[in-house]
């Protein structure tokens, strides 16, 4: 396996827009990591359909992001050493989910190459379709984190958002 050292190359740092929250947050492991994993992957020839659920729509969205990260590596190997802000906007619930996942994917693909162990939505504005969330995890390291499957893009294919009393679920097909 190769040891890719991110500091090694002459990459000029393109300006990034991620800001770490000012007030340090303390947490315990038990608060953050769910015991039973509320998401799964469904059948499809070319791609993968993520199915996530929760008591609330916020939870379903959070778990969908985790389902996506879970495809790229084994989340059990990810420690929590830093956090990243996620801000997403859309014009309806579907596009909001799309952009939320896209922002999470982008955290991984470009600087900070961040993989999340847990994602918490702090603000879910249904009138203006905006989400603010915090992702807890660390930078992806080859050797420490097993290499899973690459997620190329989020798609609108058969995307479904179902919000019901006490149970919400979402379906998203991702291109891999």
């Amino acid at each position, binding site marked *: 396996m190769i040891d890719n050292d991110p500091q090694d*190359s002459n*990459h000029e740092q*393109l300006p990034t827009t991620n800001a770490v929250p000012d007030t340090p947050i303390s947490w315990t492991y038990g608060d953050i990591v769910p015991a039973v994993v509320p998401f799964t992957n469904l059948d499809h020839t070319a791609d993968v359909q993520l199915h996530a659920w929760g008591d609330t729509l916020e939870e379903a969205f959070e778990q969908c992001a985790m389902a996506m990260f879970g495809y790229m590596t084994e989340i059990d190997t990810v420690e929590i050493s830093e956090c990243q802000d996620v801000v997403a906007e859309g014009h309806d619930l579907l596009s909001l989910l799309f952009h939320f996942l896209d922002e999470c994917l982008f955290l991984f693909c*470009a600087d900070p190459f961040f993989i999340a162990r847990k994602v918490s939505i702090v603000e879910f504005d249904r009138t203006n379709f905006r989400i603010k969330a915090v992702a807890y995890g660390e930078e992806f390291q080859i050797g420490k984190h097993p290499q899973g499957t690459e997620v190329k*893009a989020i798609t*609108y294919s058969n995307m479904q958002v179902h919000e019901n009393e006490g149970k919400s679920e979402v379906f998203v097909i991702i291109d891999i």
Partner: protein
Amino acid sequence: MVVRQYNEELKYLEKINPYCWKIKKGFQPNMNVEGVFYVNNHLEKLMLEELRNSCRPGMVGGFLPGVKQIANVAALPGIVGRSVGLPDIHSGYGFAIGNMAAFDMGDPKSVVSPGGVGFDINCGVRLLRTNLHENDVLPVKEQLAQSMFDHIPVGVGSKGIIPMNARDLEEALEMGMDWSLREGYVWAEDKEHCEEYGRMLNADPSKVSMRAKKRGLPQLGTLGAGNHYAEIQVVDEIFDKWAASKMGIEMKGQICVMIHSGSRGFGHQVATDALVQMEKAMKRDNIETNDRQLACAHIGSPEGQDYLKSMAAAANFAWVNRSSMTFLSRQAFAKQFHLTPDDLDMHVIYDVSHNIAKIEEHIVDGKQKTLLVHRKGSTRAFPPHHPLIPVDYQLTGQPVLIGGTMGTCSYVLTGTEQGMQETFGSTCHGAGRALSRAKSRRNIDYKDVLHRLEEMGISIRVASPKLVMEEAPESYKNVTDVVDTCHAAGISKKCIKLRPIAVIKG
């Protein structure tokens, strides 16, 4: 989607010869042209099975069956000829993978659709030859495979090792392989043996989002994951000795290197950005399609033009990517054998794209027209004497590189005149999936897959071994079936069959 009984659906399909079926207008609403798909008996069963399953009540899925998708594409404005399904066709986003569709540039209603190109813009295959024989390589096969794996960054989260900064990226996006040549990563002859000479001239990096550039920069020079690979292959059979010798392939047992890769996160981001833009444009311009996933824009509109320019930049990215890996492969071989890549005759036989849209001249109903040809999971296959193919291949026709699935075989074909007429010079691209990834994970054990490869004498280096069953041959259609169908249908001709002895995957 119109849902009828299966028997009703069959009335719209007609088998016109043993290798070709026609899809009549009316199968889906608003079809402007007919559809056609090329299959043999075995592949035909898979296609019809897919259709039958979708006719069952209560079937709701993300993708429609391939035949329906071909028909929906035939309903797009400006399409000419026929909506063509190649033998490796399988369902995809909007367009099926293995679908070719050409649009008249002279018609203001004609559209361009990112779904007709694919998310992985300019995913393609490059084949290098060597003057080594299998006997030269077998004693050092493991070391050579390891060396390739060490040189070429693979898998999720891997980063390129060729030094690049933001300005280099801008230049690479604009210049394509000319950048690689300037930087000393490729030989001048390599460009000759590449579609578009490795550079699409209408690329405009300013039309590409910052987000795509940020995703692309760290990944330049990486192989990727999924079905991308680098393989050390052996010539197993030569069907057309004369054409093979024009490609520098003289004997069975000759060693080649095949690289299958695309534009990585960059291309995906460009496609995603374009789809978002075009959804808005469709509302504004009142473009209606049968399927929301067939997002498109008029070719002449700002969104259409921007997409073509950024798609060209992504295509250039992929050529630079394959060129970087060519360089790294040459280095790996040179170090192993203590000879220069030149001494080893490691020339590029050809480089093809199988996810791209090109502006080409074709004869439609006896008249010459300029068409925008979308090839998604389909390879260009131009015939002998076509002006756009290299001098070396003027008499043989364009080489077509068909990558097989892991552990099976790959093929080199040549383009034919019949293909030029029937499919606007397009043919298959590979095997096409049969099983979903989730099903593969459930039913196939990765240890069995690795074990079987070892038994076949194939050295394998994979970044994510536990996912190797998703890429197992059982998950795919049979590439030999696909290639034989193209040959029998006359749309391309078999030239060489290659067998892998080492596989490097993400």
